[in-house]
């Protein structure tokens, strides 16, 4: 069985290495064949392992010792339990779909590069290498049995995300976005590393099982220097890491910009998998988080803020990918709230359903973008449904699931989250519940706004011929193209992902309430939300029947109806509203001013500090004062350095050497 575990991450790695290092030799077909083969192998192996785990065979073992020092023995190894198995299936399945989809999406990538750019020569192969490398990294992250490998995977997915956001490296916006993404994530990693450091210092191990075994001891300790309750400090540190990777307020700012990357990776990395790493990590750490109500409070509040405030921005955005991106932020906020409510299994459940329906939405958006010749602005779309029926149908499925309407997948997971938050006793849960309800309404609104705006109504692309597209790449054509349905390599993955976007919620009974996760997730009896949910669960149909008479359903539905009214019935209204509520719209369009603030305060501030220290510290003080004056401080030193400027240094240097040797000689001969 152990070989099979190795195959899962290393098959995609092998594919990535072949496609990346021998891109010229294997050509385009070779590259996609070898990487798809790698990921497909990994997916099949994951399915076999999944069945095996279902049968009760979990695994926790080490591959090799990475490092030993100071009593710490750091090993690379795998932990295969239900939580890992779910993640493996989600990651490999979505990755496989995205690999296939990419054949269609990147088919004409050479058009995105200047003709003489050598970086564009094998960009197709490079792209496949990157997404396979990503799959490897993500699998290493979820399969890890220790914090070091977790951190490796954590940073490696960040690296690939960086490379892919900036894939079209000739676009200034793309390379701005990828640097921003990396640095904001590094701010999160800063907290993450401190959390890991505290664990290492106080638990003396970075192995999950050992650390979790000592969780109770850690909870009784105080951090010696700061006086903080240790477990709270650890959990908050770890959660700051999750806030970076899973784009929680205020570290969410990188995710909307990451849409500069090609759409397949927006689906794979910035919706379905990488951004959920934080959710996965906190779930994995449930034995620690359960012991700190303070940390859980922080988690639920941060999640609530993210859910509501990011959903609001999705209403005003006109870029089809950005709408989906903000919706992703909002959905990640839901997952985070679930974590705060100690409903880890629900968070993972939503992570899974979301992976499917959000991948559908993103890949659907990508399909639209192909059809519109890289136009992303919905104001230049409209009426696309009759030209692209498959894309339309799948996006509609994704939107319904995203809005959380039964019986689609999102309903089960999102409703469970709302119930869990409602039941939670953690400080902040009431606030979170209010945010969640408001976000449900807004979720219905923005989801259907996307559908109606892009696929229904007037065919605005006919009048858009005057302007340049969002990513003008030298086509130079201004004539109207009839949009057409995308090729099969694009639509088949869409269909295959739409199926679980509909149906994956139906496994809720066994997934959440059948003790499916076993020991992988620990919930303290004091946090009773899950127990309450379990007691009230009456099966899939019971949940639907119950769901349609409760508030969230009607909120989501009224959001959808409002979208219908605003974008189908009275398409003139949005402009009127925008005029009347101009101030509010501006706040949303400016994304609460956070980007501007960060650019001014952090980026500008850091450069200012750097310049100040360089010019003021190094040049003026050290080289200037210490060199030229201030004999009183380092008089002798300064005196010598004055020689530099007086031009006598040459003599001085040599008299110095001579002096040394004379001194030595004298010393020797004296005795």
């Amino acid at each position, binding site marked *: 069985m152990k070989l099979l575990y190795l195959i899962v991450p290393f098959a995609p790695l092998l594919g990535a290495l072949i496609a990346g290092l021998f891109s010229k030799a294997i050509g385009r077909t070779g590259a996609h064949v070898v990487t798809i083969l790698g990921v497909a192998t990994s997916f099949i192996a994951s399915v076999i392992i999944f069945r095996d785990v279902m049968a009760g065979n979990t695994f926790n073992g080490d591959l090799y010792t990475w490092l030993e020092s100071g009593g710490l023995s750091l090993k690379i190894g795998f932990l295969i339990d239900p939580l890992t198995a779910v993640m493996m299936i989600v990651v490999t399945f979505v990755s496989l779909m995205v690999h296939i989809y990419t054949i269609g999406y990147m088919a004409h990538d050479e058009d995105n590069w200047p003709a003489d*750019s050598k970086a564009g020569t094998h960009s197709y192969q490079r792209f496949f290498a990157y997404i396979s490398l990503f799959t490897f990294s993500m699998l290493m992250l979820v399969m890890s049995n220790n914090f070091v490998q977790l951190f490796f995977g954590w940073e490696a997915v960040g690296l690939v995300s960086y490379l892919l956001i900036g894939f079209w490296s000739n676009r200034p916006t793309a390379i701005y976005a990828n640097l921003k993404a990396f640095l904001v994530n590094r701010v999160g990693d800063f907290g993450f590393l401190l959390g890991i450091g505290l664990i290492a210092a106080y638990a003396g191990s970075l192995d999950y099982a050992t650390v979790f075994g000592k969780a109770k001891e850690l909870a009784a300790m105080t951090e010696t220097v*700061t006086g903080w309750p240790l477990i709270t400090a650890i959990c908050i540190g770890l959660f700051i890491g999750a806030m970076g990777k899973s784009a929680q307020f205020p570290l969410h700012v990188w995710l909307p910009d990451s849409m500069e990357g090609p759409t397949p990776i927006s689906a794979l990395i910035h919706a379905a998998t990488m951004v959920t790493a934080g959710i996965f990590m906190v779930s994995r750490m449930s034995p620690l988080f359960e012991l700190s109500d303070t940390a859980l409070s922080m988690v639920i509040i941060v999640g609530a803020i993210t859910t509501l405030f990011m959903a609001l921005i999705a209403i005003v955005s006109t870029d089809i990918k950005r709408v989906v991106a903000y919706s992703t932020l909002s959905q990640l906020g839901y997952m985070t709230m679930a974590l705060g409510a100690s409903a880890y299994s629900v968070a993972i459940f939503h992570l899974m359903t979301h992976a499917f329906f959000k991948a559908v939405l993103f890949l659907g958006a990508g399909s639209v973008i192909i059809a519109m010749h890289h136009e992303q602005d919905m104001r230049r779309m409209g009426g696309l449904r009759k030209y692209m029926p498959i894309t339309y149908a799948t996006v509609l499925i994704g939107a319904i699931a995203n809005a959380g309407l039964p019986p689609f997948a999102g309903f089960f997971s999102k409703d469970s989250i709302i119930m869990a938050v409602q039941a939670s006793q953690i400080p902040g849960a009431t606030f979170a519940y209010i945010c969640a309800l408001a976000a449900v309404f807004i979720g219905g609104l923005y989801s259907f706004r996307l559908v109606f705006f892009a696929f229904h109504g007037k065919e605005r692309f006919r009048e858009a011929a005057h302007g340049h597209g969002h990513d003008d790449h030298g086509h130079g054509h201004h004539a109207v193209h009839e949009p057409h349905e995308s090729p099969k390599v694009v639509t088949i993955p869409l269909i295959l992902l739409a199926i679980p976007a509909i149906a994956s919620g139906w496994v809720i009974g066994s997934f959440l309430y059948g003790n499916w996760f076993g020991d992988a997730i620990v919930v303290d009896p004091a946090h009773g939300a899950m127990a309450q949910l379990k007691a009230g669960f009456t099966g899939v149909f019971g949940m639907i029947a119950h769901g349609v008479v409760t508030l969230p359903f009607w909120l989501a539905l009224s959001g959808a109806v409002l979208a219908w009214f605003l974008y189908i019935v009275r398409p003139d209204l949005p402009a009127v509203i925008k005029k009347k509520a101009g101030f509010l719209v501006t706040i949303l369009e400016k994304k609460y001013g956070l980007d501007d603030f960060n650019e001014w305060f952090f980026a500008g501030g850091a450069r200012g500090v750097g310049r100040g220290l360089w010019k003021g*510290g190094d040049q003026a003080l050290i080289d200037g004062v210490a060199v030229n004056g201030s004999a009183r401080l380092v008089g002798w030193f300064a005196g010598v350095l004055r020689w530099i400027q007086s031009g006598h240094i040459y003599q001085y240097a040599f008299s110095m050497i001579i002096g040394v040797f004379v001194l030595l000689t004298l010393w020797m001969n004296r005795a």
Partner: protein
Amino acid sequence: MSSSLLSLAIWVPILGAFVVFAAGNAQNLARWAALITAIAGFAVTVPLYLGFDVTQAGMQFVEQRAWIPRFNIEYFLGVDGISVLFILLNSFITILVVIAGWEVIKDKVAQYMGAFLIMSGVMNGIFSALDAVLFYVFFEASLIPMYIIIGVWGGPNRVYAAFKFFLYTLLGSLLMLIALIYLFLASGGSFNLLEWHQLRIEMTPQILLFLAFLVAFAVKVPMWPVHTWLPDAHVEAPTGGSVVLAAIMLKLGAYGFLRFSLPIAPDASQYLAPMMIALSLIAVIYIGFVALVQLDMKKLIAYSSISHMGFVTLGFFIFNQLGVEGALVQMISHGFVSGAMFLCVGVMYDRMHSRQIADYGGVANTMPKFAGFFMLFAMANAGLPATSGFVGEFMVILGAIKFNFWIGFAAATTLVLGAAYTLWMYKRVIFGPVANAHVAELTDINSREFLFLAVLAACVLAMGIYPFPFTEVMHASVDNLLKHVAVSKL
């Protein structure tokens, strides 16, 4: 155990250098002779690693002969787990430096190659000398080839930089000489370092000794605020000079702390540790900010070196195994990574004759292979896991958190700062549209450049993926050192 491997490691390159000198104007002959010498020099160090007994804390491969008997000065060599890896690193980097200068240096080839070979031998001498006078001779001698390398093959401002480098470092070593003489007298006439380690010394002289050594070593590391010579020296040095300077010479100071300051003055080391930690953190943070705003690539990498070396001194003075071993790992890793970064800048400089970030942009379009290598090294410089750059930083941060949370907190800011200055530079140089006609004409790396970058890439990845063999060598000696430092010598 008697062996003459260490002598070979020192004298093979130095004697080889004279063969290279003899080649004179026969440039190709000089190059090949230098390459063969460098490879032979590395080959004799390999048995040092293979034959190293990791269970033993003391000196191995010891050679001890009388040299100037009248003053008890000995030709006394030996390595332990702390020094052995640096001899290998040094001899290995020498090969790369020879290859890197292959066709780039057209002027006085034999002298150029010879200077590096002498340098290599001398530095092996520093890492293996166990007699204080022998150490001092090598320590000072190492200045001369580097001074010549910068002064002869350097940039337009090379004379100023060479003098600044020379003076700064020489000044430091004068105080060390006084300290050595004091110890000679205090030990009743011995220059044996191992005997000095056992010497009982009062607190005041300990502190004075520590400070004297501090000036010498801090300049070499370099520690804030005696670091301003390094950016100037790097900017003016030829690529090979920068590589050796960053990869090896900066390690001499740090090594000195472990061989002299800590074991000879353990009480003063403990007493002054807060100051050392403060200076180290200033190096990490202050210099990190300064690196951010540099306009010249070499200056940026020079500042980044200072910042990374801050981790080394930090690791030493938190006195735990994670810290000290992390610092040693960081030193070796920095040898690979900073060497590679300077070679990358050299590759571009050879084509564009500019180091200004503003003169570049969009290099990926014309040099995609190079961009790939540079990406890897930039990420290693930013401390990405699975590269060597991560291991040492990670260990030191863990050690620092164990020592004091706030120190770990301050050190961990490098995660953001290091990424910011490295990747922002990378972005401006490599990404973006082709900036100008010069960039448009760039040709990608040739097979010689591919060779040395690939070798370094392999080292960076290997050490990141499997650092165990590196730390395994250190355990016994570091453990021994820490025990030694914990015992008062008052």
